[in-house]
Each structure stands twice: as C-alpha cells, then as structure tokens.
C-alpha cells in the first residue's frame, strides 16, 4: 500500500465507521454497531501508525486530491506534529469508543446511533486537520469539526443543551470566520501561497506590527485553543455526554486549535521570524494570563466536569506558550504536551463519567468517601492528576520540563517571570485536582451515618460497568507509560 493510499485509508476509515453505525443502527443491531466502531478505530490507528514509520525515516507521505481554487489544493502531508496529533486522536478513539458503549448504555442515553455516527465523523475531521498540507485544507476540516461536533453537544436536546450549542457554534464560528479566515486570506494576499512550508512562508521583510497582528489573529482565530477571552464555549460544551467531553473536548477538538497554532508558528511564520519578536512576547503574555486565570477559576468550580474544563483551558495555554516561544524547545514542549495532556485529561473525564454512571453525582462536594467504593476509578484519577500537575514518573512532567527549559532559553529579561508562571500554574493544578482525590479517599461519606466512624464497616465495591472502568485504567497506565517513551516522541519532534 503506497503512502498516499494509506493517508486516504486513514481518513476514510472513520467515515466507514460512521456508515456502519448508520447501517447497523437502522437495521437494529446495536451490538454489531458497538463492536464495529472500536475495530475500525483500531484499523485507523494502525494506518496512522504505518504513516508514522515513514515520518520517523524522514519521509513526508503526501496525498493530493484535487485543485479547489487556482493555486489551492485539497492536499495532505504527514509531518511530525500532525503525526503526534493524529496518533493521539485515533489511538484514544479506540479506547473512547469502548468506554462510550459502557457509558451510553449504563446511562440509558437516547439517539445512540446518531451519537456514534457523529463521533466517528468528528474523528474524520480531526485526522483531516492533522494531515492538512495547507491552510485551506486545515480550515476546511477545522470548520467541519465544529459543525460535526455540534450535534454531540446538543445531544440531550434540552433547552440547556441547545443554549450551550448556540454558544459553542457562535464562539467557534465567530472566531474562525472573522479571525482565522481573515488571517488566512491576508497571508494569501501577502505571500501568494498558503502551503505549509518548513521555515515559514512569511518573508523577513514583513513588518513587526503586521506579524504581531497576524499571529494574534491566528491564535484567537483558532478558537478551539480556548485562549481567553474566547474560552467560554468549552465549559458550555460540557453538557454533552461524557465520552464527548473526554475525547473531543479534552483531546480532538481542543487539540485541533492548539495544533493549528503550532503548525502556523512553525510552517507559516517560521521560528526564525518569530523568535524574540514582539509577536512572540504578546502571545506569551496572553497564554500566561489564560494559564493562571483558568486555573484560578477551576479551583472555584464545584461541578467536576466544569472544573476539568477550566483545567483544560489552563493546560492548553501551555501548548500555546510553547508555540509562542518560537524556539525548537518550545515547539517540542508543545508537541509533547499535546500527547501527555491528552492521556491525562481523557482519564480524568472517563473517571468523571464513571462516577456519574455509578452514583449520578456531578459535584466535587458530593464525592466524599467514594474512593473506597470505586477504588479503581479514584486511583486512575490520582495518577492522571499527577500527570497533569507534572510530577514524575508521569508523562506530563516531560512537557513541563521542556517548557521550563524553553523559558530559560528565550533570553527575555523576564524569563524568571515565565518560570514563575509555570510553577504557580502547577501549584494551582494541585489545588484544583487533589481535593477530588482527597475527598474520595479520606473524607467520610455523609451517608455512612454516625455509626460509620473511621475504619468501620467496609462498604462493598460499586464501580461503574466494566466497559467504563477498563478504558480509564488503560489510559491512566498510558500516561504512566508515556513517561518512559517520551524520548522517542522528543526525537520525532525535534525541529
């Protein structure tokens, strides 16, 4: 199979999964439907993995479909950043589609066929973004991802869900049309091309003011990166069923935003143009602000999913910060964070969903003592929290490590400030994640009654269905494993 075919196969397999969902769903075989999705997911992952082999050997597999506008092709090319994003999205899709079966059935959700169909189509769009060879292809799939996830956000069809859906579409399309598309057109006007090119396409003659404006347009235009003040869609998207929050609103969708920013920094601006410029400084400031602000807000959230959503906003800012540094180390840290945060945050959401299915509890303040009845879930939550905070030996620590190295390298007078921001942010992460674990394991359950004093009658284990628990244990172990394979990732991402 040639590499071009492999790309096509990797892109089309999720579409096949969507089609099989529709067919089996309409024929009334929900079991076949729910087996087919993970299987096709595994094939998708295998295809992306195959492409990875070529990229590691310094190949750049390409697929050019056709010319859309004169000089603008619908074309794909796999390069390291896209590969990491593609692997993360397709790999975690397998786990999520298993988890989703347990969750959707355990929670008796309606419209499951529609749900799984759009889920698979979203992965299609995410892979399109990952492999885009030019800004047009990226934008095409970026918008498609917004539209395809809309039915998932409004899944419940309640007034609340529809209102959240409106905010979701409103902010994401507003930013992408008025900022991102404008930036793309402006780039097209300035350079006559929108192909991603190593070293960038904007010439050194571009004025510093213009570069700053363009970079901010791109950064805010990729609204999926949830930079403040365009972050509100993400907490709103939490009305969706938990598998959606887990894979899409912690991994595929939000990473599409930061991935776009990374791509643009590396392949449109070029690191040389940005390093040490005003544009870089401006974006770093915005990223740092978002990082701290979102973390502070996260501490105040009682709804577990909302807290995780703000934590995501804060963690995404790490990647934007890495991109904003415009150094090889910064980009490396950003790429690592895409993978590390994905494994960690998806586990946290899986746990939140498992708690919801098992106990119907959504608030942090209601979790007292649950750790003893759901030990696996809370242990996984603990591991993943450590990864998010950035404590070895968990994957997240590497991303933070390289980000600090990058901060030292920037050479700005305020590198100390940058280091401070990173440390405070990690500290804040302790404050918003650890209470969950502490309440779960050490607080006494209010329902235990006065007789249930410490160490009293042990309550039986009451975990969520097996299909929910197994995936979250798996992803928790993955974030542990990522600590040890980070070297391979780092060598892949060296620019």
């Amino acid at each position: 199979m040639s590499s071009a075919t492999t790309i096509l196969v990797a892109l089309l397999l999720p579409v096949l999964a969507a089609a099989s969902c529709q067919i089996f769903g309409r024929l009334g075989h929900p079991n076949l439907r729910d087996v087919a999705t993970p299987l096709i997911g595994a094939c998708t992952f295998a295809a992306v993995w195959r492409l990875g082999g070529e990229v590691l050997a310094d190949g750049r597999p390409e697929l050019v479909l056709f010319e859309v506008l004169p000089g603008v092709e619908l074309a794909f090319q796999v390069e390291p950043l896209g590969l990491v994003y593609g692997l993360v999205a397709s790999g975690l899709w397998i786990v999520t589609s298993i988890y989703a079966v347990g969750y959707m059935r355990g929670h008796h959700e309606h419209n499951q066929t529609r749900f799984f169909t759009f889920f698979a189509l979203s992965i299609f769009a995410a892979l399109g973004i990952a492999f885009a060879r030019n800004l047009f292809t990226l934008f095409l799939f970026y918008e498609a991802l917004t539209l395809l996830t809309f039915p998932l956000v409004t899944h419940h069809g309640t007034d609340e869900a529809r209102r959240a859906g409106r905010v979701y579409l409103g902010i994401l399309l507003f930013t992408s049309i008025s900022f991102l598309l404008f930036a793309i057109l402006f780039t097209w006007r300035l350079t006559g091309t929108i192909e991603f090119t190593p070293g960038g396409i904007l010439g050194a003659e571009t004025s510093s003011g213009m570069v700053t404006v363009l970079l901010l347009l791109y950064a805010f235009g990729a609204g999926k990166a949830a930079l403040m003040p365009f972050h509100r869609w993400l907490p709103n998207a939490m009305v969706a069923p938990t598998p959606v929050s887990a894979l899409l609103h912690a991994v595929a969708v939000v990473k599409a935003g930061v991935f776009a920013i990374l791509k643009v920094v590396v392949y449109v601006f070029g690191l040389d143009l940005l390093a040490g410029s005003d544009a870089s400084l401006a974006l770093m400031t915005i990223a740092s602000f978002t990082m701290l602000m979102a973390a502070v807000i996260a501490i105040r959230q009682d709804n577990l999913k909302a807290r995780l959503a703000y934590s995501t906003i804060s963690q995404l800012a790490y990647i934007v910060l890495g991109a904003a540094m415009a150094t090889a180390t910064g980009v490396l840290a950003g790429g690592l964070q895409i993978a590390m945060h994905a494994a960690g945050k998806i586990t946290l959401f899986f746990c939140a969903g498992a708690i919801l299915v098992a106990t119907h509890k959504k608030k942090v303040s209601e979790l007292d003592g649950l750790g003893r009845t759901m030990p696996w879930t809370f242990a996984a939550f603990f591991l993943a929290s450590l990864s998010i905070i950035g404590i070895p030996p968990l994957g997240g620590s590497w991303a933070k490590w390289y980000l600090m190295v990058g901060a030292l390298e920037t050479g700005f007078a305020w590198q100390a400030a940058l280091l401070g921001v990173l440390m405070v942010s990690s500290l804040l992460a302790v404050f918003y994640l650890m209470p969950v674990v502490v309440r779960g394991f050490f607080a006494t359950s209010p329902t235990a009654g006065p007789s249930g004093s410490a160490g009293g009658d042990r309550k039986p284990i009451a975990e969520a269905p097996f299909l929910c628990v197994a995936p979250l244990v798996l992803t928790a172990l993955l974030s542990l494993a990522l600590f040890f394979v980070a070297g391979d990732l780092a060598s892949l991402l060296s620019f």
Partner: protein
Amino acid sequence: MIEKILVLEVVLPLLAAPVCVLVRHPRLCRLFSLGVVAVCFAIAVAVLLEVRGGGVISYQLGGWPPPLGIEYRVSTVNAYLLALVTAMALVVMSFDSRGGPPRVPEQRRHLYYAVFLLCISGLLGITITGDAFNIFVFLEISSLSSYILVSLGGHRRAVMSAFYYLVMGTIGGVFFMLGVGLLYQVTGTLNLRDIAARLEPSLDDRGTVLALALLVVGISIKLAVFPLHHWLPNAYSFAPPKVSAFLAATATKVSFYLLAMVLFTIFGAPFVFEELRLQAVLLPLSILAMFLASGAAIFQADLRRLLAYSSVAQIGYMTLGLSTANATGLAGGLVHLFNHAVMKGGLFLVVACLLYRVGSVHIDALAGIGRRMPFTSAALVIGGLSLIGVPGTVGFVSKWYLVSGVLERGWTAAAVLILLSSLLALVYVGKVVEAVYFRKPAETQPIDHVREAPLGMLAPAWVLAVAAVFFGLTTNWTYGVAREAAELLLAGGI
C-alpha cells in the same frame, strides 16, 4: 453554424409559449417546456464552450449588419449567464410541483407554462442581445411575465405583492428606457458596441452622467439593490414556491449582468470608478445590504421571507464585488451569481418540498421535521451552510474571492465586514436548523402524518445541493469562467 443556433436560444422558448397555449394539455405542456428548456441549456453549453478563451459569436438578425440591424453577440460574459439561466430553468422546470400553482385551475394550467417560457425567453434575450432597445423589449417581456407568475401564489397577498412588484418594476423599466433614450441622443445609435465606441463620457457632459444615473437606478430597482429592494421580500414569499426558486436563481442575476455591462462596457471602468467614483455609493450600500437585510432575515418567522431577505443581502455581496472594479473582486461577484443561484434555488426548492408536505414554512411549524423528512432537511442544511460560506461549499468560494479582491483594493475594513456579515447568516440559518432538528414539534401541530417529499421534488433540490458542494470543491469551471468574464469586462468588452 453555431451562430445560427444562437438565435434559437431566444426564439425557441418564445415560440414554444404560444404552442403551449395551443396544446392545452397540462402534462404535455410541462414535458414540452421541459424539453425546450433542455435544448436551450444544451445550446448555452455549446456556446459557452465555443467562446471560452476569448471567442465571440455574432448573429445579425435578418441579415442586417450592425449598427443598423440588431446583433446577437455572445462572449464569455453573457455565455456564462446563458448557461446559468438555462441550467437553473432546467432544474426548476424538472421539479414536479404536483398540480402546479395553487390558484390555477387544471384547464388553465397550460397558460402557466406559456408564461414561464416567456419569462425564460425574456431573460435569455436580455443576456444575448447587443442592442440597447432590444434589451428594453426583453426586459419588459421577462418582467411582465414574472409579475404574472408571482401573482399566481395561492395567498391573496400574492396579487398585492405582484402589483407592488409591477409598479416598482415599471418605474425601473422607465428609468432604463429614459437612460437608453439619452444615450441615443448623445451617440445616435442603439448598438451597444457602437454606443461604447462613440461615447466619450466626461463629468462635464450632463447628458451622459444623467443617462448613467438613470440606467444605474433603473437596473438597481430590478436587481433589488438596497434600499430599492422593497418589492423583493413580498414577491418571493408569496409567489408559488417553484417561481420563487426560479426568480431567485435567475432574474436578479440577469439584472446584475445588465448593470455590469452598462458600467464596464458602455461607460467603461476608468470613467465610472476613477472619475465618477461610483464605488463611493455602491460600496456602502452593499455593506448596508449585507448587514441590514441579514439582520432583517434573522427576525423573520417565515422561512420564505427569511430566504428572501437573505437574497437582498447576497445581492449586496455581488454589488460589492462590482465596486472593487478589479479582476479578483469582480470575478468574485460574478462567480457569486452562479453560487448564489445554486444555493438559493436549492433552498427555495426545499421550501417547495416542505410546503407540499407540511403545509406551512413557518419556523414553528417546522419544529422536529428533520426526523420526518430527513432528505429534505439535509438539503436544507447544505444550502444553509453554503449561505454561511462554510469551506467546501460554493458560498466559501465566493467569499474567498470577494475578500481577496477587497484586500487587493486595500479596503481592509470592508474585508472584515464581509466576514462579520456572514456570521449573521450563521444566526438565521442556525435558527432554522435548530428548529428542524433539535426542537420538539408543538402539541397543536402534530407532524406524525408528515412523510418525506416525493422523488420528483426531492431530486431537483438535491441536484442543487450536490452542486453546492461539488462546485465548492472544484472551481475551474465556475471561477475559471467568471475570471475570464471579469477580465473581459474590465477591458471594456462583452
């Protein structure tokens, strides 16, 4: 050979109309007119292929050479329009409206087809002819027949809106006529190329400037340029749905061609856009249309009125392309003629499907219809996405070139406004889609009896929906032709 066929383009539907009157059998008339339109489409495509790359086909009526005789003259610009009008006529004509317009009894249905054919031949005549007075004649043929078509909508207000349309249309026609008269006074000829050659427009020459003003205002009424658009929302929302689809897809497009021809071919871009600076009026009006009409669309409770206001806004995009007066922007405006025809024609056909099955296109009545009519609703979504300008649809292609053209002009603010205005489209499209898919049907209006529209209705609507995506991804036919036409217009030719 091809120039002899050219004249058939107008003559065929013109003669077919009285044949329909004689045949009287409604079914037969429908098939017959469908056949005629199909032949016209084939001719238009042949002509377009012939003239692409700078060719010109000229036919002298009655063998009288121009400037004395009437000349039919076709280059890429009007060949593009011919193909557009006939293609849309073909798709709309193939739409099986199951019993025709509501107010027309069975025994008079043949007249409906006769009028339809007259309207088509009028529109094709305007596009094809190279003679100013001849344009006026065809303009009146198409206008008069479209007043009749609009008045056939079942509602009593259809007659009123047709009358209003008639009054406005006649004023527009008179303005156009006066303009042509003044030009005749100045140049002593009616042949367009001859006028262009003899006319030496200057700001000091009151007659010429007045002629331009009269022509522009007259055509702007027919084109529904904001703020002369008042006839349009009513006419489109009370006409029979098939007629709305046809008029939305073709009538305004031909008026746009006429405006472009007057500005670029007769008066020439240097005079209009550098001396007179028409863009100082046209650009603000276009932007106002984009925002105010889209804003009005948001507050419409009836899907047809919503689409009609959206049309006014979309005409704003076209005139905005015109006012850039550079190849990219003008090509953007021209390609939007086709793109808008595809999406709006498709959407009005969807409206026709919904009206047939649900009986109303009030947005509340459409709640939850997505489950009962999945294919119709999906076509509605595709058309809606295209109106917003989502990449992968035709709307995006138009927006891409309009914004590029505006940026080339250095009008950064206008570029931002174009993009912002498409967000208003997001609001009104979103409102409809949300009702169709995510709202529960009202208790008072059960929709359990609603079934999917019949294939004869669904197929034409889907042809346009597929075209909206297809031409959103491959543009060498649409944009390629539009670009060539734009360069030709800027060079002063037709």
